[in-house]
């Protein structure tokens, strides 16, 4: 379902400073798989996620998702692709702190101009599912870390994407909340979502629901 064909991504900070985020990546992920991307910071895990989400374009090579070459998409269509296919849970959550829980979660749906009833149903379902319905009108910056993460997960889920990407999801959580997160991921797997988690948290290592563990270092995959 997701295929990387000889993908390289380099960032050019200035003429002397070129960072190679990932190098010659060739890999395929199947639909419904749960993948763990292991590796230290800077190993290229975040870049892989970014490339799958079409948030960045490869310097060379191709990324193909569901037979579609997403690496060539224009800005507009990259957004549409993300909207329809990707749910991204960022490391820093990237919620809008001055908006309420409800407003944050419904953000991906806003441009779609759906009927108000449909939106309400989706919203309530998702908020119930991730146990933050009771805080729906609270401004996000007043929530605890765990609650904020649930909002982030809810937001990534509301447009019913096929692919869920999580970047260091448990970096700011304690053990209990981390385990809660893993529970939620298991539920998502039940729904046949393709999940890719980039983390160096050992809590994830060797878990049963994870289909594959891929280790990365210096931008390359270590078999």
């Amino acid at each position: 379902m997701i295929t990387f064909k000889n993908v390289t991504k380099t960032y050019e900070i200035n003429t002397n400073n070129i960072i190679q985020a990932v190098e010659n990546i060739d890999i395929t992920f199947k639909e419904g798989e749960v993948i763990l991307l292991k590796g230290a910071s800077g190993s290229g895990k975040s870049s892989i996620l970014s490339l799958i989400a079409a948030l960045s374009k490869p310097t060379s090579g191709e990324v193909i998702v569901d037979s579609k070459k997403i690496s060539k998409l224009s800005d507009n269509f990259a957004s549409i692709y993300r909207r329809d296919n990707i749910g991204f849970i960022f490391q820093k959550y990237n919620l809008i702190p001055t908006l309420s829980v409800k407003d944050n979660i419904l953000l991906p749906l806003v441009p779609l101009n759906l009927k108000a009833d449909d939106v309400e149903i989706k919203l309530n379902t998702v908020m119930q599912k991730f146990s933050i319905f009771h805080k729906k009108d609270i401004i996000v910056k007043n929530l605890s870390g765990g609650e904020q993460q649930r909002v982030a997960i809810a937001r990534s889920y509301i447009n019913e994407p096929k692919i869920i990407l999580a970047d260091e999801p448990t970096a700011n959580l304690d053990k209990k909340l981390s385990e809660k997160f893993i529970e939620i991921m298991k539920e998502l797997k039940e729904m046949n979502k393709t999940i890719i988690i980039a983390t160096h948290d050992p809590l994830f290592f060797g878990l049963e629901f994870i289909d594959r563990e891929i280790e990365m270092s210096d931008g390359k995959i270590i078999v």
Partner: protein
Amino acid sequence: MILSPEILTIYILNALFALLSAIAFYFSVRIFLYWNENSTSQLQYKLEKQSYLSATIIKYIFAIKVPLFLFFIFTLDDMSNIISGAMCAAGVVDATVYGSYLLVLKVLNLYLFAYWIVLHSKDIKFEVQPYIKQKFGLFIGLFFLLVVEIILEIMMFNAIDVTSIVDCCGVIYSSSSQSYLSMVLSLDYFILLGIFYGVFLFLTISYIFKLRYLFSILNLFFIIISLITLISFFGTYIYELPTHKCPFCFLQKDYNYIGYFLYTFLFIGTFNGLVIAFIEFNKQEIEKFYTLSFLFNFLYVGIVTYYPVIFYIKNGVFL
């Protein structure tokens, strides 16, 4: 030379249009020359961004142009009060040699800009953007037309001399004057009306059977025959005076501003009909244009027919 607040407003907005369209023009040229959808270079990336700006500017210009055009017509009508001899906008348009060209150009630009917008909304539905070069190439032409329009407008307002007497519509459109226009207008009513309703009948048929190119061409004929019959026949029933043949007087308050409605309906109807021939729409989209076109043309026909019918019912005779 008059510099009333109304004319000044028109100038200010024209200046804004000139500035913004120049920016869009610059980018349009670059896109037209260098756009390569397979390229992943920095240039292509920049062009992509610039295409958003150009499109936004063009949409903005059209959005403001429409009310500004109505305001322009209204201003012309208003100016007839201070230009000796003019009783309606017809006199003002005729006061200078630029007037009629300006009016025609403005209407043409409205059609073209509207077409651009439709083309654009079709274009961005595809990842590949099949019409991108066509679109911006069109705008390059449109830019020149816009500039000509602005220049003509300035020249026209400059040239208007309040003291020199102009002809009023009674003279311009009457059968006694020498122009081609009056020759056409004095053709036999039966012929003109026959053509008018005939064209509309064929329009209806092509609508029902979705005959694409026929529908479009008929819309073109419809514009022409509508204008002619409006001035020479239907207008006289709006004014209830057989000799009053004028396309501008019914824009005035005395006639409930019906002119604005008539021309607006005619524009919407014929534009949607014309656009069908030029762009490849899918079934769902084309449905929308067919319906809009037919609906507004129908409304137009309905309203213009209403006047002579009501007149006959009230008076028992035709003019």
